[in-house]
């Protein structure tokens, strides 16, 4: 298994002089202090302390500016951030803001990197978002599996104690959330913070109308908030100086696989994949394929990688998106059939075990892929996989089964030859090698017991 290195050698990609933005000032170890953060970015412009009417005007102005910037959510869904802010601001009741740093996807390290190294950027963004939606509470969520990021956030909050205990600031707290895959899903996060298990709930109501403690709840990914912190200071047109017209700005990408320096990089939206690989010191082996968007993402074969730009438009024909900014390269020597089976088994283990089609469907899909990898599948295996995929997708309370099916289906398409070969002749040389995709050896979820057991 390739260990993803600590993402410390980040560099701006391509000839964009304005990068890095989020990652500027980042250090090899430790977090930027409040003093260093303020020296780098300047003070945070807030409307706190102003008259109520001015506060309201400032809040509306913030949302307008974020709308002009074209910022979209960096948690994977790319939803327009301003639309979400406006929905929460317009909902009935006092809002709550949650900074989502739960990062259960093992191929993503960018959120923990932000919390660990640049905690004040995330706190700033959370404060601005709270102001924009009129929230009196901000909950910062860090992953229990990333203790360094929890410590850095605690330290950062201590540094800002005076500012945050002032009469105008929202109540700010830090929550440590479990590290399993679906824990970061919005309703799972609300469920957990409300005292329940970190498992998705059935919607509606959506969190923006009735979330934590039945109050309108804004949940933004940690990186999205970090961008907001800079947009509030520099403005929308500054943000749009980088990126494409449909996807302005920069984005964080976690790159892993056979490259000299795997880790977290900040790229301009729409940058070429090859420029990202160059920034990481180039490949160290021939690349067979890339998995974009992580374990709910899609594969692109090595032959198609040349010239691929990391933009919505370029990736769409391949059925892929960057998701939460994830690029996994698979080396030529790895077996894509065995890797897909491993990834599918891991995703099956990450099911919240709540919805029947997800529990049974993902398990059956993983089992069937394992049979193929071992050469034990019969001639009708392709039809079986297709049927299982359609029985599993879109039948859960959350999108977990859909994401897993998406990744499996794209693997069947991109590696059709390899799958057919394994189905006929059994395991290949590459199968015996240790898995290359970064997956925890055991599922992180400690809640893999049957769903009936969870209920009284």
């Amino acid at each position, binding site marked *: 298994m390739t260990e993803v290195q600590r993402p410390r050698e980040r560099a701006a990609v391509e000839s964009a002089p304005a990068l890095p933005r989020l990652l500027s000032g980042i250090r090899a170890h430790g977090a930027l202090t409040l003093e260093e953060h303020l020296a780098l970015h300047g003070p945070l412009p807030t409307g706190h302390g102003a008259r109520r009417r001015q506060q309201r005007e400032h809040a509306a102005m913030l949302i307008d500016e974020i709308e002009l910037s074209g910022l979209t959510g960096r948690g994977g869904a790319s939803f327009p951030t301003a639309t979400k802010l406006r929905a929460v601001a317009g909902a009935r009741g006092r809002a709550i803001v949650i900074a989502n740093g739960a990062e259960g996807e093992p191929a993503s390290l960018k959120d923990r990197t932000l919390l660990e190294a640049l905690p004040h950027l995330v706190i700033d963004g959370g404060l601005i978002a709270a102001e924009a939606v009129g929230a009196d509470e901000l909950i910062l969520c860090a992953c229990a599996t990333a203790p360094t990021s929890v410590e850095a956030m605690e330290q950062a909050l201590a540094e800002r104690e005076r500012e945050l205990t002032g009469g105008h600031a929202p109540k700010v707290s830090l929550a440590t959330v479990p590290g399993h895959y679906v824990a970061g899903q919005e309703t799972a996060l609300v469920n957990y913070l409300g005292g329940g298990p970190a498992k*998705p*709930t*059935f919607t*509606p109501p959506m969190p923006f109308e009735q979330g934590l403690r039945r109050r309108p709840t804004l949940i933004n990914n940690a990186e999205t908030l970090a961008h907001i912190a800079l947009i509030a200071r520099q403005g929308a047109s500054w943000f749009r100086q980088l990126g494409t017209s449909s996807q302005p700005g920069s984005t964080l990408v976690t790159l892993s696989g056979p490259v000299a320096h795997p880790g977290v990089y900040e790229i301009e939206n729409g940058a070429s994949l090859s420029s990202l690989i160059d920034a990481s010191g180039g490949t160290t082996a021939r690349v067979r394929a890339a998995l974009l968007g992580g374990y709910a993402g899609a594969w692109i074969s090595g032959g198609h990688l040349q010239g691929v730009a990391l933009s919505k438009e370029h990736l769409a024909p391949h059925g892929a998106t960057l998701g939460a900014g994830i690029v996994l390269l698979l080396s030529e020597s790895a077996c894509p059939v065995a890797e897909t089976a491993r990834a599918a088994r891991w995703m099956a283990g990450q099911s919240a075990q*709540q*919805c*029947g*089609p*997800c529990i*049974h*469907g993902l398990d059956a899909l993983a089992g069937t892929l394992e049979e193929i990898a071992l050469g034990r599948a019969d001639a009708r295996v392709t039809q079986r996989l297709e049927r299982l995929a359609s*029985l599993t997708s879109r*039948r*859960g*309370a959350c999108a977990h089964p859909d994401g897993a099916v998406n990744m499996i289906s794209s693997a069947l398409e991109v590696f059709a030859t390899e799958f057919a070969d394994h189905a006929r002749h059994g395991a290949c040389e590459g199968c015996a090698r240790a898995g290359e995709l970064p997956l925890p050896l055991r599922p992180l979820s400690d809640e893999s017991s049957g769903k*009936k057991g969870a209920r009284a």
Partner: protein
Amino acid sequence: MSHRVEVNPITCEAHGMCAELLPERITLDEWGYPLIDDTPLHGSQVEHAIRAARACPTFALLVKKERTERSGRVRVRSG
């Protein structure tokens, strides 16, 4: 105003009563979970659907009433 059948996949425990009581809309997959035709119900199907929903041991089957308000927004209520 129209009615549709929906299932809460979290509370559903594959008892299969719904497929017995509303076979024209619901079949079961190989694990016993309902596969639902969620196009609008018509005529007497509404009554049958409501009976099926009431018979579900975990109340996982929902009959949703959709009404297009003057504002053009769809209001969803479970019945």
